[in-house]
């Protein structure tokens, strides 16, 4: 594909060449420019979004940290009245919620958005507007959830919101709704980020970056994004059931009407346990970048790291019941989860040994990032060991809900996540501002945090073993808890002072400080090619031939900076990136990346408005916000996606020419749809899990009801199948150029979908199923409603394709839209088939 430049024989840049280069740079700079004034906030560039995202997550972390200090102050001495019991409940609930949902997960999404394009050697992730939408959703939802405590309305039932306490409107006020709706909104943002990261890592690597050359950070993030895809949807499904109970009294978790609080625990922890690894793996991923740099050698055991990442990713889904060891599940069930909990220690151990081996084999430079990394690993290993202890059910029965667990989870999360994050902050800060953070302050911060942490949290193991339960707002003297709690509080403040030192270091004005060299740590990976003061990412996109290009190809930086590689120009005035194949990174398309736009913000504001209005049961506002959101969303899709290029192919330099429009399976949009629908399918599967869960806990879960019968569900199923078949045929017809027939098929399929949806609703409707009476009508309704809502989205897509066809932007050649819509329809068909076959036939079979 390309010849290697030999710097010795290459003719020195003559004047013409230099002028051409300056002109290219000018055009690139203009195309990638961040707007000025208030429009700065409409930027979608990954470096801007990444920094905003990370700063917001950091601010939320500081806020939640202050809440933790309030909690610790209250617990410093027995019988304290610093906080009231209710405020204490709000403080610890919000502390946990914010740390997990507004800091631990988003901070990694932000790091990834910021640093991944550079690492992969692409100019931008494929859907920058989606990143922007994710950020704004996150910011709005986060401020809403955090702000609630200022109005004494924060959630107060603990960060996992167990019913029946959290479903009881008299005990727990609007805080629970704020938690459910505010976080559901943020979970949508997390899923958006997951889609962005998976497509980015699989399809937007530099040419030649085969899967065996990918930076390990990308491997980890690929796995983590996949985990988000399977872990978050069960929580979204759970939130849906929960909110239906709180708002409309559908009895999903109410035993009096056939419900069961345990279903929530299942759905929550199917999310909650992988979540721990979702925050831990990216931290380890940062270490996998930092350790080789400071050992000044490639990682030892690249494949072993891949084993560990994939293995942990899978096994972490087999652990959720270990949070439910004391709920009276069968002993045999507990044993399966106990076994998987022990097994996950194997891949976790592998990655730690890989780091140790790399350090032993290299020449270690001890720096602030290494200090935080190593300190974090020590803390994490202690947390891992107590984890192995609590994975043993009989021990857990003793330790459950005591401070032992509080100690364990903080050792795991702070060692496995916060310390590596700080390491990453010190390591990557030069990429943000071009300047280094202070070495001296970093060391002071580390020792304050490391000692403060251990003084604060180690005694909690003992307090827990002495029997102090978690979440009590005070305790009487002479229980043996007094001095341990006082020590913990002192440690917490020492730890917090360490964080304060970091904050000072980060916000310290650096006007006079000289610029750091562009690769200050002498790292080997591609992200250090990017110049912090340019928005274009890479000046030109190189072909990759090694795992550590900056170490192993000495002339690469110059070649890239002189624009001697691919896409060195932006003649047509578009932001562009290269789309490549999954396995071997062969260049496939010049992908036009969407640029600056106010639409993501508008979408986030109105979707956020809809969620917030729903919390206050302001239905009209909800409706208005939803309609406006829908309008902006359609505008975004219409003007921002599947644009027809002005020419078929484009020369990207070095004699390579690539198409500007690719549809179907190789395209980025197709992958995004596929990945989104996998997540969507997981949420649907979680609802079906609920259906069968109720079947297992009752002798007759229908409570004698005959509804919805078999007739209407099976009719609906047949109509859905017909609509789907027409969609599949229409795609072929469109490809063959028979436009009129294509439009007729679309219209027919649309009509069939509407009929299918009405038939679907007819079953429970004519059966007189009242969802507030009993769990059976409630779960049937929710599953049917889920399917019909998806059919409605399908109808919108069909209408969109029709309009696009009439407008001439969907043709036989330019057919991205219909490919992606048909893909959606495959998933819709499976959803409808499962829904109606199960609700129509299953009650008859048992």
């Amino acid at each position: 594909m390309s010849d290697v430049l030999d710097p010795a024989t290459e003719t020195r840049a003559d004047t013409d060449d230099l002028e051409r280069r300056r002109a290219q740079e000018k055009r690139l700079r203009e195309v990638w420019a961040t707007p000025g004034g208030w429009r700065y906030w409409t930027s979608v560039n990954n470096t801007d979004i990444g920094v905003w995202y990370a700063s917001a997550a950091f601010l939320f972390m500081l806020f939640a940290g202050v809440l933790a200090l309030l909690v610790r102050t209250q617990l410093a001495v027995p019988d304290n009245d610093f906080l009231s019991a209710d405020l204490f409940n709000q403080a610890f609930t919000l502390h946990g919620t914010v740390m997990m949902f507004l800091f631990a997960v988003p901070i990694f999404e932000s790091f990834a958005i910021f640093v991944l394009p550079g690492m992969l050697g692409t100019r931008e992730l494929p859907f920058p507007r989606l990143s922007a939408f994710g950020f704004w959703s996150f910011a709005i939802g986060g401020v809403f959830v955090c702000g609630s405590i200022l109005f004494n309305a924060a959630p107060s039932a603990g960060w996992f919101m167990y019913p029946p306490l959290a479903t009881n409107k008299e005990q727990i006020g609007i805080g629970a709704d704020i938690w459910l709706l505010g976080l559901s909104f943020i979970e949508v943002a997390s899923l958006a980020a997951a889609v962005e990261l998976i497509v980015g890592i699989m399809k937007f690597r530099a040419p030649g970056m085969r899967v065996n050359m990918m930076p390990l950070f990308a491997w980890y993030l690929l796995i983590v994004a996949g985990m988000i895809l399977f872990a978050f949807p069960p929580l979204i499904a759970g939130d849906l059931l929960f909110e239906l109970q709180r708002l409309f009294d559908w009895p999903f978790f109410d035993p009096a009407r056939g419900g069961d609080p345990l279903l929530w625990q299942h759905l929550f922890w199917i999310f909650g346990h992988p979540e721990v690894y979702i925050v831990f793996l990216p931290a380890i991923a940062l270490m996998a970048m930092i350790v080789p740099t400071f050992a000044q050698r490639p990682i030892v055991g690249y494949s072993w790291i891949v084993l560990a990442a994939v293995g942990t990713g899978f096994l972490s889904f087999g652990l959720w019941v270990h949070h439910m060891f004391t709920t009276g599940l069968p002993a045999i069930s507990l044993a399966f989860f106990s076994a998987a909990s022990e097994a996950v220690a194997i891949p976790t151990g592998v990655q730690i040994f890989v780091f140790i081996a790399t350090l032993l084999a290299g020449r270690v430079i001890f720096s602030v990032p290494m200090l935080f990394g190593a300190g974090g690993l020590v803390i994490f290993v202690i947390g891992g060991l107590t984890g192995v202890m609590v994975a043993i059910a009989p021990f857990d029965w003793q330790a459950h809900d005591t401070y032992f667990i509080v100690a364990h989870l903080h050792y795991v999360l702070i060692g496995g996540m916060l310390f590596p994050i700080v390491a990453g902050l010190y390591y990557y800060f030069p990429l943000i501002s071009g300047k280094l953070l202070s070495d001296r302050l970093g060391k002071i911060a580390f020792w304050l945090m490391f000692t403060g942490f251990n003084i604060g949290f180690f005694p909690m193991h003992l307090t827990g073993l002495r029997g102090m339960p978690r979440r009590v707002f005070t305790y009487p003297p002479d229980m043996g808890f007094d001095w341990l709690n006082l020590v913990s509080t002192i440690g917490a403040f020492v730890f917090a002072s360490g964080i304060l030192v970091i904050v000072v270091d980060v916000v310290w004005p650096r006007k006079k400080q000289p610029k750091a060299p562009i690769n200050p740590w002498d790292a080997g990976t591609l992200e250090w090619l990017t110049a912090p003061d340019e928005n274009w990412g890479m000046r030109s996109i190189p072909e990759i031939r090694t795992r550590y290009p900056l170490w192993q190809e000495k002339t690469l930086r110059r070649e890239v900076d002189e624009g001697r590689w691919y896409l060195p120009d932006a003649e047509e005035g578009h932001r562009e990136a290269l789309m490549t194949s999954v396995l071997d990174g062969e260049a496939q398309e010049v992908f036009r990346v969407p640029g600056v736009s106010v639409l993501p913000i508008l979408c986030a504001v109105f979707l956020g408005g809809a969620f917030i209005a729903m919390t206050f049961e302001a239905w009209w506002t909800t409706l208005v916000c939803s309609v406006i959101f829908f309008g902006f969303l359609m505008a975004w899709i219409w003007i921002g996606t599947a644009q027809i290029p002005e020419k078929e192919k484009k020369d990207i330099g070095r004699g390579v020419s690539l198409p500007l429009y690719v549809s179907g399976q190789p395209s980025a949009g197709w992958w995004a749809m596929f990945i989104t629908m996998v997540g969507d399918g997981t949420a649907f599967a979680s609802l079906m899990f609920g259906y069968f869960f109720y079947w297992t806990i009752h002798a007759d879960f229908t409570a004698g009801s005959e509804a919805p019968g078999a007739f209407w569900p099976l009719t609906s199923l047949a109509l859905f199948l017909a609509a789907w078949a027409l969609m599949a045929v229409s795609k072929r017809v469109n490809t063959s150029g028979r436009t009129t027939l294509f439009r007729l098929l679309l219209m027919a399929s649309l009509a069939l979908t509407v009929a299918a949806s009405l038939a679907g609703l007819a079953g429970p409707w004519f059966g007189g199923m009242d969802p507030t009476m009993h769990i059976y009508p409630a779960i049937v309704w929710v599953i049917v409603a889920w399917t019909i809502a998806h059919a409605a989205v399908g109808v919108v897509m069909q209408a969109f394709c029709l309009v696009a066809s009439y407008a001439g932007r969907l043709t036989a050649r330019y057919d991205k839209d219909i490919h992606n819509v048909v893909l959606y329809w495959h998933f819709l068909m499976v959803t409808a088939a499962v829904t109606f076959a199960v609700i129509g036939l299953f009650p008859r079979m048992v």
Partner: protein
Amino acid sequence: MGFRILPKEIETLWTLFTGPAIWAVHFLFCYVWAAIYCAKRDQLQFGMVFVRGGIGVATVIALVLVAAGGYLAWRQWGFGVNNPPHNKPTEDSRTLFQGFSTLLLSALSFVAVVFTALPTLFIQACWP
């Protein structure tokens, strides 16, 4: 073309996940199978022996599948003739890397399946 006992090598990323996916299915089966039995045992005609037997059969199937996947991975890795790190910019090196990583994952999955099945050897009732 005659009948092949071993399938040809396929060019895809997804084979990497074979072992863990088999573990996941096996794990889910064990959990669901035992949970349904324990919830519905009053209405069922068979005892726990049947449950444990079912898990035993499922475990043997899972282990055979993981081992077969592992063998294919070993073949993709060229039966260990080449040593890691497999970091060359060639299709060969990429294939060897995939084979080796898949082999490692198969080994982990094998152990994890055994771990999951072990409790059924010892636990003889839903609630002892």
